[in-house]
């Protein structure tokens, strides 16, 4: 698979304070489901914002489809058609009076006509399973519903890469399960920042761990690497921890309770 989006030697942060990322590299292949792990404040959000073109790095390059992103207005516009970022707090994204209006904002800005935009809205609401919310005022929705509407707003732009910052934070187990099932239904590349290591192991094709201002990327088995996890202040997923305690092999990688049960029996 070829890379669709990547960062090379990325240094980024805020003026007047030390950089949050320093020389970070990451490469996202087309069609992959990547979990981006790291503790609070490690730089997950900064990395996502750089990848989305929302933050200009101090040094380093963002690559989209093999081309370095210039941070001029025209390039950023083109980049935003390719990459969409959904923020952690849906209230940072929703602003319209009702759901349909909010989701239609992006498509209308793409220059789709009224009819085209309407089709995109319907499609996005359906993908997120929130068609029933179409006419509801945004500020009356529950937190979980607002999260879905915010994702629908990004999905309606039909990005090739969807970046999600902590989409599962604040959702109950049933809500998380439903959201993950929904994401599996999308045919875009998905990068999901989370600090839920168990979720990352069970869902992701690929894992990137942010720690010490850099990114370490690999297949989900790196979640068994004690040293890496300690440096990132993460714990091992229970699946791997249990097999480790029992002295059993974690190969093939146990993603679910069933996998673990099979490995033990």
């Amino acid at each position, binding site marked *: 698979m070829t890379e669709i989006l990547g960062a090379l030697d990325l240094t980024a942060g805020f003026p007047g304070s030390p950089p949050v990322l320093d020389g970070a590299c990451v490469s996202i292949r087309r069609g992959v489901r990547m979990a981006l792990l790291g503790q609070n404040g490690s730089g997950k959000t900064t990395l996502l914002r750089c990848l989305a073109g929302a933050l200009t790095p101090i040094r380093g390059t963002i690559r989209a489809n093999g081309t370095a992103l210039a941070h001029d207005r025209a390039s950023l516009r083109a980049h935003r058609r390719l990459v969409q970022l959904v923020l952690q707090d849906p209230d940072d994204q929703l602003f319209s*009076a009702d759901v349909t209006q909010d989701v239609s904002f992006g498509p209308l800005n793409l220059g789709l006509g009224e009819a085209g935009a309407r089709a995109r809205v319907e499609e996005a609401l359906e993908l997120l399973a929130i068609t029933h919310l179409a006419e509801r005022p945004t500020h009356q929705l529950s937190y979980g519903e607002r999260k879905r509407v915010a994702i629908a707003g990004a999905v309606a732009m039909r990005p090739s890469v969807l970046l999600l910052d902590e989409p599962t934070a604040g959702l109950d187990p049933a809500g998380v399960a439903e959201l993950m099932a929904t994401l599996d239904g999308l045919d875009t590349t998905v990068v999901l920042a989370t600090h839920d290591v168990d979720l990352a192991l069970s869902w992701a094709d690929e894992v990137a761990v942010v720690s010490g201002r850099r990114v370490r990327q690999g297949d989900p088995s790196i979640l068994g690497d004690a040293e890496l996890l300690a440096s990132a202040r993460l714990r091992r997923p229970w699946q791997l921890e249990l097999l480790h305690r029992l002295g059993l092999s974690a190969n093939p990688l146990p993603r679910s309770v069933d996998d673990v049960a099979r490995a033990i029996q």
Partner: protein
Amino acid sequence: MHIAEGFLPPLQCAAWFAVAAPFVIHGGRAVVREARKSPENRLLLAAAGAFTFVLSAIKLPSVTGSSSHPTGTGAGTILFKPPVMAFLGTVVLLFQALLLAHGGLTTLGANVFSMAIAGPWAGYGVWRLFKAAKAPTWLGVFFAMAVANLFTYCVTSLQLALAYPDATTGFLGALAKFLGVFAVTQIPLSIAEGVLGVLLFGFFTRV
């Protein structure tokens, strides 16, 4: 745009403090009364104050090149009446002086008079006038907000003209010059603030 620190002669600073003080004290009394009624009102008034501050940081489309910003006092004066706005406006101006270096402390009296007293009262007067004439609400909102904005800068010009009269034509000539710089350029922005008010009014009838 508020009068910067050091720009007015000391006597005039004192005079504007004296003129503004009764209004602000009256407004402060009104706020204390509201606050005593229920602590909830304190939060509500604080929210209104914070919002007035933030509104001045919201950029309006199309009005490029103007260094001025919405005053946000027009909406407040309709909702909370001019005395309360006199107090909230004073708080906002104090914050702007110390957090943004907009305006100043010795010029606070003059700025309070233009933005927190004259503007809101003018806007409120227009609002009542349109109400009395049974004009549509949106029209009242438009003119109240536009007038509150524009009048603020007319008063600012007047204050500056009083301080720095023209060498030959005196106060009137100076007024023409300051109005030219501060008020004429403000006309598009005051219209913009009025339009924003009308659109906001529309937003709230929909939600």
